[in-house]
């Protein structure tokens, strides 16, 4: 069992594992950022740009989540 795992470890696996950790942290950060944008947008609202900005912030979260899932399956 352990030998099989060791045999499967190569540069790609290590890189994806490191990316997975990075994306988990980044995803959390982007989530916090999106909520902060939401909160601050409620404080200061500029009708012409606020929806676009919120959309961009949440798109960042969504893309992070998708990449995280893809990396999980690639491992």
């Amino acid at each position: 069992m352990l030998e099989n795992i060791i045999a499967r470890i190569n540069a790609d696996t290590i890189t994806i594992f490191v990316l997975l950790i990075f994306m988990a942290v980044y995803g959390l950060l982007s989530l916090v950022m999106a909520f902060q944008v939401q909160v601050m947008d409620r404080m200061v609202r500029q009708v012409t740009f606020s929806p676009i900005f919120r959309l961009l912030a949440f798109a960042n979260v969504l893309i992070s989540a998708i990449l995280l899932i893809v990396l999980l399956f690639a491992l």
Partner: protein
Amino acid sequence: MPEDITGEFVLQEENSSISGNNSEKSDEKKPETQKISPKNKYDIKPENKKAPHFFSSFCYYPKGVSFATQQEEEEIILLIRRDFITNVPWIFAVFGLLAIPFLIAPFFDFLFPIPLSDTTLSYLLFSYFLAVFGFIILKFSLWYFHVSFITNIRIVDVDVHGLLLRETTETRLELVEDIGYQQNGFIPSLFDYGFVHIQTAGAQQNIEFDKAPQPARIAEIIGDRIGGKEK
């Protein structure tokens, strides 16, 4: 004798009688709402309100802008952010970050001797560009939400220093005692931005607009509203 009568008479608007120069009643009547002085060359009429762009750092009577604690009768006179030129360093940094993968591509095998599959490389590259995108959103939000408002009632200053660190200061216009501005250095003088300092009465916290565009104009606009000319 009619020849002995001297003095001046001032005709006032309706609901007021003809009074002599020595009458004190005429001095007591002042409009309750603040009006824009036609003498101020910078003023535009509120009917000409315009919606600010996403990169607007100075907007007079902005349309479609509001803030959380805004009262019903409160009208935003001026919206101020840090001058857009202050974003140039991080915009250049973004261009540099975007260029890095293309610059190191020819030397990739030399820099990373461990062979990686194309799929892993694409994941790596995609994650990198996503992080750059996040950096853009973060830097832009720090600029975009670092905003100050001058309304017909008060001055509100929202300072965003970090993702989780923000500070709001406000003071009523009648509590403002003094305004000053400062432009230090070549770049601020060239692009006309600087530091506006608003001193308030008593224990009230002073307000500072950092890297505000057209500081002289801001000082003039606030000065017009606290000096008694408009009240």
